[in-house]
């Protein structure tokens, strides 16, 4: 009996300590470093992560925080008041929407890079695909592309397929992903037979996906960047835009396969 009681008392003590620990973590003051938040198109994930330490090294006390997702999702978050300083889109359309809604500083807008849409298939076990028209064969059951409403890469792909007069036939095979990186993941896992991503995405997973062809017939893929109108650190945010256009960042973008702006 007393053994049961004492073990229960132990348990209560442990639970109390755990709760106290949680409360301490929850209430502790945030670090004092100056944080710059950048919402960027998912396709920029690797290259921006690689560049972050270089920007931070030149400005002690500054920390970069990234938020990667589909451009349409990011602008929506900003519209709802997300505390973001810099927005980098993967297409003109989303950028124009942000400027039109006065969410972004129109004057700060700069193109920082360009890209190319490619058709990829899983490296292993993929059906034979050599051209867009091959996507219509019965062997190809599922084609991944970004959600048309929020993912620029999905819209570029639709544009090309419409131009090739294939969209109506292929749409039923479409599996629509949250971002271009999810398309890449679906193809890499072999859950779909083909997908539309950027050349730079395909390069990130070169061991798992194979590039069939460059896809033409869509608007040029450019990455416009701009300061968020409600950002609190315009000067620092402006510095970051300048950094992205500088030689160091442009060299890293080129290495990753991005084109010149």
């Amino acid at each position: 009996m007393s053994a049961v009681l004492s073990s229960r008392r132990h348990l209560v003590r442990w639970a109390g300590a755990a709760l106290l620990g949680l409360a301490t973590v929850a209430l502790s003051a945030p670090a004092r470093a100056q944080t710059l938040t950048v919402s960027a198109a998912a396709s920029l994930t690797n290259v921006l992560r690689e560049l972050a330490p270089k920007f931070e090294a030149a400005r002690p006390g500054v920390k970069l925080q990234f938020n990667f997702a589909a451009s349409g999702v990011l602008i929506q978050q900003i519209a709802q008041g997300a505390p973001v300083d810099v927005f980098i889109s993967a297409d003109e359309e989303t950028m124009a929407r942000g400027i039109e809604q006065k969410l972004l500083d129109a004057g700060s807008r700069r193109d920082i890079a360009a890209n190319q849409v490619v058709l990829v298939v899983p490296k292993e076990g993929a059906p034979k695909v050599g051209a867009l028209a091959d996507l219509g064969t019965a062997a190809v059951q599922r084609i991944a592309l970004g959600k048309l409403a929020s993912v620029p890469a999905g819209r570029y792909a639709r544009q090309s397929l419409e131009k090739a007069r294939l969209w109506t036939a292929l749409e039923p095979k479409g599996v629509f992903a949250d971002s271009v990186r999810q398309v890449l993941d679906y193809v890499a896992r072999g859950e779909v037979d083909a997908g539309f991503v950027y050349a730079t995405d395909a390069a990130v997973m070169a061991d798992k996906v194979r590039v069939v062809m460059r896809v033409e017939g869509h608007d040029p893929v450019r990455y416009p960047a701009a300061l968020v109108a409600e950002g609190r650190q315009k000067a620092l945010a402006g510095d970051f835009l300048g950094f992205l256009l500088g030689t160091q960042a442009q060299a890293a973008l080129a290495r990753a396969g991005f084109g010149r702006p």
Partner: protein
Amino acid sequence: MIDLSALLSGPGAAPLWLSLRVAGVATLLAWLAGMALGWLVARTRLPGRGLLEALCMLPLVLPPTVIGYGLLLLMGRRSRIGGWLREHFDYSIVFSWHGAVLASTVVALPLVLKSASAAFAGVDRTLEAAACTLGQSRWAVFVRVTLPLAAPGILAGTLLAFARAMGEFGASLMVAGSIPGRTQTLSMAIYDAVQAGDDDTAAALVLITSALSVAVLLLSNRLFGRSA
């Protein structure tokens, strides 16, 4: 003001019917499996039944993303099961509404299982024994005595399971994706509408979902009193 009837025949129709279909089938499967497992746990001395129960209860405490990822690893094209199904039947559960049913069943199962095992455990054994002495077979005792006595508890759990299946999002999104007209359920359509900034559609879909949920809760209160 949102015109509900216009929405029900427009963009809300397909997600609503799909949600009802997915949740309906998932609830049926969870009901059958939950009852069988509840019986095993409450009324048998099967070795390892505690572990089995704990495994089946896991979806209640695990993040939906873990369930989704687990199901992908288990049933995806590159997995043993998924690969076998694809090779022999040219069938794949991923990115089809069956995938959403699977995910919803897995997350709804604990709710039926828990209430069923409690209900079976609460059945008065002397009534079963009496039925036995009156010459009823074991199956007849189960169907005519045990099941009716346990029914309220099982039904309450099943209704909750239906509500949970209707609200399933994370695991289903990972397994079935959100393909308009095919795997896009109500909760996914809301997610997509919000992401795309289509607030009118989102609000209308939220209204539909809320109305359905309230209806389920009211039904449950009506059937089982305030305590259910």
